[in-house]
């Protein structure tokens, strides 16, 4: 299993928001949390659910459901923490579907 880190390198985490599926490079994902402790903050736009504490850093939580489909995004309950450049971001999605390994990924032209 020495190539498992290599497989992770090119795997994609598939998640669901409404009827749509989105992918995120698995190597960027830090953690998936099913019961995130999110602190709401005043005067945020609807797609920002608030902030959370991840290992001492204050991380903004983006509600991907509210961002993509509008509304309050109450269906989005699964929290995915990932690295975006130097920042850590958290997104709320409806569900995590699967991990796609490299050889399962077919790119549509």
């Amino acid at each position, binding site marked *: *299993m*020495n190539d*498992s*880190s290599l497989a992770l390198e090119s795997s994609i985490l598939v998640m669901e928001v409404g009827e749509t599926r989105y992918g995120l490079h698995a190597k960027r994902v830090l953690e998936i949390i099913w019961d995130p*402790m999110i*602190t*709401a*903050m*005043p*005067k945020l736009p609807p797609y*920002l659910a608030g*902030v*959370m*504490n991840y290992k*001492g*850093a*204050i*991380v*903004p939580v983006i509600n991907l459901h509210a961002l993509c489909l509008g509304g309050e995004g109450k269906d989005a309950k699964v929290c995915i923490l990932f690295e975006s450049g130097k*920042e850590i*971001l958290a997104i709320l999605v409806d569900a995590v579907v699967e991990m796609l390994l490299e050889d399962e990924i077919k790119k549509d032209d």
Partner: protein
Amino acid sequence: MKRPRKRTSFKKATKEKDLLQKSYEEYTPEDLFQLIFKPGFSTTAVTNEFSGRGVGMDVVLQKVEHLGGIVEVDSALGEGTTFTLTMPVSMTSVDSLHFKVGDYDCLLPIRSVEAIHAMDEMWDRIDIIEGRPYLQEKTIMPVIRLWDVFDLDEMDEEYIIVVKGINRSLGLVVGAIDGQITVVEKALPDLLGSAYRGITGITGCAIVGEGTLGMMLNVDKLFGIYQRGLKEDE
């Protein structure tokens, strides 16, 4: 019964990694313990892709030292090992007043708090001048209802906190007061930039309970919000 051998001896490991500069016997135990932190040092005979590579302790030392701390090791054969991590008290640890505005946990540095009054006792010291409330203490100062700042519905006015910024004071009307708490203030993420700080008065966050974050307010930012409110009314 003989256990399967999962570890190489400490002595053998130091030689394998060529870490010794003199003979093994010349080292004091304290010096030898320091070898644990050398990158690549491991006594594990069986490694996998995650552990046993001699990375972890090196990282621990680097991180602790980066924060200005130290790591001490003490070990006795057959008894156990003690790792002592000593960290400096952070410069950002702040004695704070913890209170509620609606459901929000809010914090103010104690050093900017001058007085706390129950709202019930203060009504006769509050005057409305040109439609805006002012409190008479040692000086006359503007009063801000924090739920107005946060765009919340009106709620019970329980306490008024007299706060002092740079050469000016403010009265802040808040809900329940939870008491004093020492917190480590964390910066807000870049996504909540200076514009957000300017409209909410919030400049940081800190852990106030189990997983709950409180919002650190800045008096001068709040004063800016009050002044902008005056201009908008003109």
